[in-house]
Each structure stands twice: as C-alpha cells, then as structure tokens.
C-alpha cells in the first residue's frame, strides 16, 4: 500500500480473500472445469474419434469389436477390458458434464431472461442427459450383450 513518505519501486502485489459466496464460487469452478476438462478431452475424445471413426472406420465397426473391448455381460473381464472400460468411463463423464454445462451456458444466454423457461429447459436437458449417461455407464460396466454377436452374424 502506498506509504506517505517513501515509495517502494516496482510493483505492489496484493492478496484478496477467496470469494465467499457459494453461488459465485460455482461459476468459477465450472469455468475452470470447462477449461481443464476441455484439455483432457483433447486427448480422450480425439483419440477415440481417430481410432473408431478414422483408423477402423465406421463401416468396419461390428458388434464383435464392442464385445471385444468391453467384455460380454456376465463373463469375466480381462485387464485390457478394464482399461478400456476406464478410458470410456472417464471420457463419458467428462464429455457429458462438459457438454451439459456448455448447454447450460448457451441456454442461460438466450433464455436466462425467462427464468421459468430456462429452468424447464434445463430440467429436461439434465434429465435426458442423466438417463442417457446412466445407461451408458451401466452398459459399460455390464459389458455388451452376449446375444448381440449372433444378431450380427445373422
């Protein structure tokens, strides 16, 4: 702080208290989350995309491949399959939360002035997203259905 008789050359550095209001802290946390999850997703999402959609190619994706990576419902899983499951689980959680918060931001921009609509919209989106991702997670940990392969062979 400026003194009255002498001045320290160079720049003053000051500290402030952490921002106390939880609501505001949430905005900050989400803002940070968007950036860090984004950076993580660069590796996760891009590697997945390149693997599945470019290297293998959508046209080559068969149910059998999924069974191989996830394991099959009710059967023991290999170490490799656990790693695959973890990889997909992390990506799924990050992508969904990142995406949902993204949608929340967009919705707040355009519908924030109508709280009722905004809240309604957000509930629907969150509900649908929760359902889908729960399904996704469950599927991941249950593995692909054993019968699926047969269907593919038919």
């Amino acid at each position, binding site marked *: *702080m*400026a*003194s*009255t*008789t*002498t*001045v*320290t*050359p*160079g*720049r*003053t*550095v*000051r*500290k*402030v*208290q*952490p*921002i*106390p*209001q939880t*609501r*505001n*802290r949430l*905005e*900050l946390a*989400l*803002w*940070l989350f968007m950036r860090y999850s984004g950076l993580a997703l660069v590796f996760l999402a891009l590697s997945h995309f390149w693997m599945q959609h470019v290297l293998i190619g959508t046209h080559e994706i068969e149910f059998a491949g999924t069974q191989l990576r996830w394991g099959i419902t009710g059967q023991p899983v290999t170490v490799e399959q656990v790693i695959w499951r973890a990889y997909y689980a992390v990506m799924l959680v990050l992508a969904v939360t990142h995406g949902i918060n993204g949608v929340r931001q967009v919705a*707040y*921009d*355009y519908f*924030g*002035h109508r709280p009722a609509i905004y809240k309604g919209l957000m509930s629907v989106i969150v509900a649908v997203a929760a359902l889908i991702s729960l399904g996704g997670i469950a599927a991941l940990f249950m593995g692909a259905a054993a019968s699926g392969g047969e269907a593919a062979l038919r």
Partner: protein
Amino acid sequence: MKINLKIKRFNPETDKKPHWETYAVEVEPTDRVLDALHDVKWNQDGTLALRRSCAHGVCGSDAMRINGRNMLACKVLIQNIAKDGDTITVEPILGLPVVKDLIVDMEPFFAHYRAVMPYLVNNDPLPANGRERLQSPADRERYDDTTKCILCAACTTSCPSFWARGEYVGPAAIVQAHRFIFDSRDQAAQQRLEILSAQDGVWRCRTAFNCTEACPRGIQVTKAIGEVKEALRTGVIR
C-alpha cells in the same frame, strides 16, 4: 468523391419499425464519417438524429455500427472504408434500445458502469504532510491502459454475450473495475471482485474478442478481463 450513406432510420413518433434510407453525399476522402452524417443532417434531412460532441474521438458520444462494425463516426476517415461510389452503412449500436435513428438508450450501459464501484476507495487517513499519496511509476503503469476508457460502449455493444443477455455487465464495466482493482492505492478490490464473480459478471465473457477490436481507444479489453478473471482465480492482484 461521391459516396452513398445508407442509414438505419427510426422515428419513435411515426415509425413502428426501423427502415433504411440512402443519401448521396459529396465528400473529401479525408472527411470523417461524422462529416458525411452532418452533411446529410445539415443539407438534406434535418430529422436525422445522432449524438456527437468533440468530433475527435475523445468524448465517446458517437459510437455506431459503420459497415457492420462498431466505431466512432468521428474517428474513421471515409478513405479508409470506402472508394468513390461506394455505399457506407450506418446503424445504431446493438444491444441497447434504439430511441431514435442512431441514438440508443445508454441508461442500461451506465447502470452496469455504476454497479462495479467505479471510484477509488481508500479509507486510510490522508498523508499527514498534506501531500499526495505516493505511487511508484510501475504501479501507476499497471493500470494505465484501462484509464483511457471514454465509456463509448463500442465494446459492450459488440459483444455477443451482451447481445444475448443485457444483464451481462459487459466489457466496459469490467474495464472500469480493472482500472481500480489494479490501482495500488485502492482498497475495494475485494468487493469489486465479488460483484464481478456473479453469474452475470466476468464469467459471461466468452473471449469473443470483438470488444478489443472495437475499442476506439486501443484498450486491450479482453486482456483486462482476463486479468480480472486471473485475480479471481488466484486471489492475487499483481
């Protein structure tokens, strides 16, 4: 040279909706767009309404959208945006209610300005020798950029976040807050940062960068916003 001025007109006493009107004007290439608007107002159609005062880019009255971008009409020379025979479009800035022709209601803008405590707070006793508070040149330099702001609103009304949601405090108010947060003599950084951390505060800034591009005073607006965000994040003002 000859140019056409295509101006978005709106008269609240007769019109329901804005409409475009085009005027041919004879100008010098070194004339300002403001001169061309004056030519229309003074020689062709006196009903044209706009704000202006200083005519050299320091009072902040005449921010408007010229050829689709926010500028001060008095600070852009015709030769820099048009050739002989070209048409220049002029519209009011966006995101604030249009009152008449190029005049918008600035009140919401100033309300955001007032909301960030745009004044020095220092409750220490004044220096006993009756003289100035001291400040090192480096500390003074720290906030120099944001002291240039003339509150023209060119930045705020170029910001897509503000277009979407007028409650967003907007870059101009953040610039003003920055000017005080980073002033080593000030003691209210804490309160200002709290105000700016609200949902319609700095986090609404999506780093679109239009503001920096639009600022007629060359202020690094996005950088200033970034520094405020950094202070919020780290709790350190440096």
